[in-house]
């Protein structure tokens, strides 16, 4: 066997990859990007992201018209969107290891890349939390500025909803997610460097308890960072709702990365139309799952008709917000459902890029729907004070999301595009859908 690959071209450990010798598609230039590729785009996005984020958070310091609550809310929407991409990707990394998935090996590295950026989402959310703690009642979480005795429901919930415990939980989520995302990446890169099957086995071992910790932390993070903005609301389904959106947007993000990599001439014969078909199925599945959870959370509350629960939805069903609610029903479920149910669409990477962009936009709108109506008590007529709302919302959302994608490009370029030695690589390279 001639040794055409070198460590320099394919990254450490490439030359010893058993798959490189057996599959011509595993040649170095096919599964790696040159150092510095996409540097301009990445740098530009990071600059735009930082600029927009800083601008959003500086605006309330300058003008009276710009409210802190509003600025933090808009920024929070972007921050949570970035965070959910990483959380969903972390979920898929662990699921792939847990079920010993073969087909997903060639796409798993991109899930790992997205998951490894969980620190970005965490840092961004920490910014909105810290600003809110600093601003108290003017911040996003109005309960942070409220005294005992002011509100009956808050008093009842105060054992959980108090600032010190809130910050402690933030720290716990951060430790759990950074550790899990770090371990997933550590074992994957370790496998690249050392070969053998041990790294994959270790990753699976970590994934089992990891999944348990992930489920609990994600559910409670959803309660803390989204639901408790409206602290009077009750919904035990909220954790699943938050998770459904996360899984959904992470598949869209990874599909987009892979489709762009294919367009740049990489991963030829490694990530094939069969893999896109499967990613399309996941997109479709989580699109339906999201709709199921979102509707039934609403449905039970609508049916039971208990005032403290219905207030949340009534607020979002009148005064202009109903347009956003309708957009979510149609744009987040009906349209993607009818498009993605078609086999041809799932097997067309170009169409999947368009779908991925749309679905990421819908995730932003979903988070926006959760966060933004809480900023002003009344209808959007009060919520749009002159022309100040739109720039804040656009900048606030754009900042964190652009920053995330800028850093993501850098991350994707930094290592081989697939796990080099994974024992299931052969299965993934010859993967085929028989339906």
């Amino acid at each position, binding site marked *: 066997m001639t040794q055409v690959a070198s460590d320099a071209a394919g990254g450490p450990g490439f030359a010893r990859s058993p798959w490189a010798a057996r599959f011509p598609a595993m040649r170095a230039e096919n599964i790696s990007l040159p150092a510095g590729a996409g540097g301009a785009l990445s740098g530009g996005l990071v600059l735009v992201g930082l600029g927009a984020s800083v601008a959003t958070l500086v605006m309330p310091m300058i003008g009276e018209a710009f409210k802190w609550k509003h600025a933090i809310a808009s920024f929070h929407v972007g921050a949570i969107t970035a965070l959910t991409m990483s959380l969903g990707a972390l979920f898929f990394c662990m699921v792939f290891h847990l079920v010993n998935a073969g087909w997903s090996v060639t796409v798993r590295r991109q899930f790992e890349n997205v998951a490894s950026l969980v620190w970005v989402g965490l840092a961004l959310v920490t910014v909105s939390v810290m600003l809110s703690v600093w601003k108290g009642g003017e911040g996003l979480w109005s309960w942070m500025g409220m005294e005992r005795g002011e509100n009956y429901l808050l008093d009842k919930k105060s054992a959980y909803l108090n600032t010190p415990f809130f910050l402690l939980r933030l720290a716990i989520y951060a430790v759990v997610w950074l550790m899990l995302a770090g371990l997933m990446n550590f074992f994957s890169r370790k496998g690249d460097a050392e070969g053998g099957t041990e790294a994959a086995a270790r990753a699976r071992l970590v994934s089992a308890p990891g999944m348990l910790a992930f489920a609990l932390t994600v559910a409670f993070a959803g309660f803390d960072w989204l639901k408790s903005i409206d602290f009077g609301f009750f919904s035990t389904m909220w954790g699943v709702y938050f998770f459904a959106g996360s899984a959904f947007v992470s598949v869209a993000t990874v599909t987009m990365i892979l489709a762009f990599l294919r367009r740049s001439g990489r991963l030829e014969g490694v990530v094939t139309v069969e893999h896109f078909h499967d990613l399309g199925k996941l997109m479709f599945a989580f699109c339906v799952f999201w709709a199921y959870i979102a*509707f039934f959370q*609403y*449905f039970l509350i*609508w*049916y039971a*008709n208990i005032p403290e629960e219905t207030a949340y939805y009534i607020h979002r069903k009148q005064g202009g917000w109903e347009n956003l609610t309708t957009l979510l029903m149609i744009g987040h479920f009906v349209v993607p459902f009818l498009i993605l*149910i078609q*086999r041809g669409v799932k097997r067309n990477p170009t169409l999947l890029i368009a779908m991925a962009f749309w679905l990421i936009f819908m995730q932003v709108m979903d988070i926006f729907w959760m966060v933004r109506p809480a900023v002003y008590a009344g209808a959007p007529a009060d919520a749009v004070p002159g022309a100040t709302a739109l720039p804040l919302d656009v900048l606030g959302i754009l900042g964190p999301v652009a920053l995330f994608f800028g850093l993501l490009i850098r991350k994707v370029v930094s290592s081989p595009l697939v796990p080099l030695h994974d024992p299931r690589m052969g299965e993934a390279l010859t993967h*085929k859908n*028989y339906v």
Partner: protein
Amino acid sequence: MNAPARFVTEKGQPLYGITAEFATPAAVYHAAETIRDAGYRAWDVYAPFPIHGIDEAMGIKRTKLPLIVGAAAAVGVLLGYLLQWWGSNVGYQTVVQGKPFGSVTEGGWESFVPITFEVGVLLGSFATLIGMLALNGLPRHHHPLMKKDRFLRTSDDLFMICIESKDEKFDPDRVKELLKSAGGTNLDLVEDK
């Protein structure tokens, strides 16, 4: 018996087809490719277990079943919704919990969603089962191949291909030649009775 049989066996029975046996899935797979490329349409592969990719090797087109199921599910969704809409708004108007009777414009459509979904799933699954059986020509009580003792081994350790006499290209000598050249052994005639 409508039209007289195109081919008959020495016993005077109408000919159903010609079988050939294969020992391994790989052999039957490649034989299938050969027969597909020779342009035959009325033939089938018999194997003890599903062989991945055999559809492609046989040149079988994708099933129309999803379209049938989709249409049935859409009808189910429509029927389920209409059933409830008619019952709540026209037939038996009843105020429940002070909620609207239920329509998309006036509100109250929410209560229709579970049943609408369920009827859609119900008709969809009926269409899946019945459509699958119909497209496969099932149920049938008898198949000419069942008369062959060696055919029973295709549910155990044997792979078989049968080219049927109703194929337009069917010509006994050329079919035998083709099956032999594709690696088939123990060629045999199957009577249609």
